[in-house]
């Protein structure tokens, strides 16, 4: 571990020196930020480097396909259920298994609950310290530091998180890596008592959600004045959609430019075919772009840019208020933090709608997939963005090839360009102060990077 953020590597690159910030804190996984200087001590480039790789996608090859979704859930401790879902959907696509309607509803409910819970953990442990104590000493810039001075605000967030956690525990059994989603459906359909308990838990969150939203709005306004450097996001944003509206299990992928230009709508297969992988020598992460869209953004801010649709009135209203205040497109990094909160509200509304309209619990849980030599592809929009899984199986149900693409791979080129832009404005020499290191990490955290997800 480096003792100092200004720890010089001493190696030569581009005729200048490199400074390494290691590790990047309050993100999922282990990574560093490398700042490369010109011989005149000006920033040439800053880049986020993934330092770990596990290769779980390679582990899937040769394994019985029916076992693979539970294994690939372990790609990520945060978006694991979405990897599991994507894996199941890719196998369903390969086998032609038709998902029973009740199983589809259960999956949708689980998606919203997982999404909200994942975002809540990000808000509590990542966002709140950045927004509430941006200039404080690192010793207190964390959730316990805030908890000791503003316990009620933190407790409100924890009450919401606990409600979603209990709802997930009730419906899916476990919070992380749940086994409930299986190829062809789900392993069981929740009974009426489970569903009504879930509805009660969610109903009790409304006041805490309102209070927390107001708090975050206030903090983001303040933070915008303190941290905005004039650097905006440029390129394209992307989300899984249904008729243009973001939806985690959407059957199409919409790609729109931040600037002028028409949106492009792709099928899951077209997304796979249009991807360009560009491995780099300095990171275990393989950046991915699309033909005609070199710099992509996927995740909460992308979905917020596309709008939430009229069925979630509260989230839609708040989204429109943001657009009024900040203008369209929403291309400032700190708005990603607002997007997290608005998606919690959207997920809360969506879950409640599903529970209100739930028709007969106890339908068919699953269709048993039958294997022939085939391949399948699927896309799921996870809390951190678009996940793509592609699988080939043989006639006996053994996996022959597997490919996983994660949100960080899509986001990496845009994140590094943005990080370089910020570094050029705030880094004034090879001595990196804590405030500068914090600003650079803020630029990274706005993309909510998940390294285990990105390198599988």
């Amino acid at each position, binding site marked *: *571990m480096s*003792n*100092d*953020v200004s720890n010089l590597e001493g*190696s030569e690159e581009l005729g200048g020196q490199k400074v*390494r910030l290691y*590790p990047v804190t*309050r*993100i*999922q*996984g*282990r990574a560093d930020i490398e700042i490369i200087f010109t011989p005149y001590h000006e920033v040439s480039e800053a880049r986020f480097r993934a330092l*770990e*790789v*596990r*290769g*779980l996608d390679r*582990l899937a090859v040769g*394994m*019985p396909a*029916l*076992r693979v979704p*539970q*294994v690939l859930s*372990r*790609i*990520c*401790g*945060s978006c*694991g259920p979405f990897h599991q879902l994507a894996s199941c959907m890719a196998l369903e696509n390969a086998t032609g298994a038709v998902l029973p309607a009740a199983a589809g509803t259960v999956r949708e409910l689980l998606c919203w609950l997982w999404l909200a819970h994942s975002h809540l953990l990000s808000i*509590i*442990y990542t966002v709140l310290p950045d927004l509430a104590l941006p200039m404080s000493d690192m*010793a207190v*810039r*964390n959730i*316990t530091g805030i908890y*000791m001075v503003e316990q009620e605000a933190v407790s409100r967030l*924890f009450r919401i*998180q*606990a409600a979603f*956690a209990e709802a997930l525990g009730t419906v*899916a*059994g476990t*919070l*992380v*890596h749940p*086994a*409930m989603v299986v*190829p*062809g459906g789900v392993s*069981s359909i929740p009974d009426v008592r489970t569903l009504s308990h879930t509805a009660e838990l969610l109903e009790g969150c409304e006041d805490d959600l309102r209070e927390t939203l107001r708090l975050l709005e206030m903090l983001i306004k303040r933070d915008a004045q303190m941290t905005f450097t004039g650097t905006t996001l440029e390129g394209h944003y992307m989300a899984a959609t249904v008729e243009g509206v973001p939806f985690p299990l959407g059957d199409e992928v919409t790609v729109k430019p931040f600037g002028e230009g028409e949106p492009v709508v792709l099928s899951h297969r077209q997304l796979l075919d249009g991807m360009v992988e560009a491995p780099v*020598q*300095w990171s*275990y992460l*393989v950046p991915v772009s699309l033909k005609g869209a070199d710099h992509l953004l996927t995740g909460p801010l992308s979905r917020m840019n596309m709008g939430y649709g009229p069925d979630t009135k509260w989230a839609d209203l708040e989204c429109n208020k943001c657009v009024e205040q900040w203008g369209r497109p929403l291309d400032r990094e700190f708005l990603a933090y607002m997007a997290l909160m608005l998606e919690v509200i959207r997920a809360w509304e969506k879950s409640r709608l599903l529970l209100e309209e739930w028709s007969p619990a106890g339908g068919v*849980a*699953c*269709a*048993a997939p039958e294997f022939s030599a085939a391949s399948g592809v699927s896309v799921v929009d996870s809390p951190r963005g678009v996940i793509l899984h592609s699988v080939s199986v043989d006639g006996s149900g053994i996996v022959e090839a597997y490919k996983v693409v994660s949100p960080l791979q899509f986001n990496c080129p845009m994140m590094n360009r943005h990080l370089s832009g910020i570094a050029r404005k705030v880094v004034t020499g090879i001595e990196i102060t804590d405030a500068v290191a914090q600003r650079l990490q803020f630029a990274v955290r706005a993309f909510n990077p998940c390294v*285990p997800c990105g390198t599988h």
Partner: protein
Amino acid sequence: MRPWCLQGSTGDERLMYIATVALCACGGCHNSLLAAGEPFVSLLSEHTISFSSYLFDRRTISPSDVVLATGGIRNHEELEIAREIERTSRKVIAVGSCAVYGGLPGARDREEPPAVSEGAGLPEMLENVMPLDSIVGVELYLPGCPPPPGLILESLKSLEGRYEPPHFDGTVCSECPRTVEVKPVKSWSLHPGCGVPEGSCLLNHGLLCLGPVTRGGCLAACPLEGSICIGCRGPSDMVLSSQLHSMYSDMVKYVTLSTASRREKVEKKLSAVLETIYLFTRRDPVIRAKVKERVPGE
């Protein structure tokens, strides 16, 4: 012997310096801990965080009374971090099956990692994944993928001296409300088909559930939802108790009995999915010895 002894150094005998460290891990164990929510943060606020890249912006590993370490050791950087933990911490809790057994990344022998340039400064991969206790003296083992939030929290509290450390010597089956009958099975599968009736043992429906040989403590969360146990908490005390037991051999025995099947037939079926039985534990030296002994060709 570790030189550091921080507890009590400030005059407060209860104050502990707590760290969390992630090695080769997916982050699930950390997320499970974070999902413990307010009780966890309340506990931390009574102590001091010495290091945690998930929670805290400090970049150096500082001396700690308790380290919650997740993940196995897969590259040289993780090896260095593990050595640093060993030098600077008093008690280490190995959280999750990756830390305890090596976990999923050790399920197969090492494959070639992605090509990177030598001067890039990326950590070089080790020959194979190692469990945490290959390098670090572990005070408490907490297997699971991930262990439930409450279990991690209870372990942490136990090191405060408030509770006995949690230990579950039973199996997942012992916590499962489903009832097993002795009846034949037509075919075996890893998939629940159109679903399994509530209350009925998954093995009775031909599902290869590892509940009979897997350590309990998870409240049988997966079988309860109709999905098979994949053995993420590793072998139960019974399996570990002698050289005559292994997950494979005990599973053969249990399935033979509960399904009134011929032993040879069950052995053949389970041999075909042997890798899935040892998904989480293959890198553990004790388990590897048993696998070699029990299953020819492994």
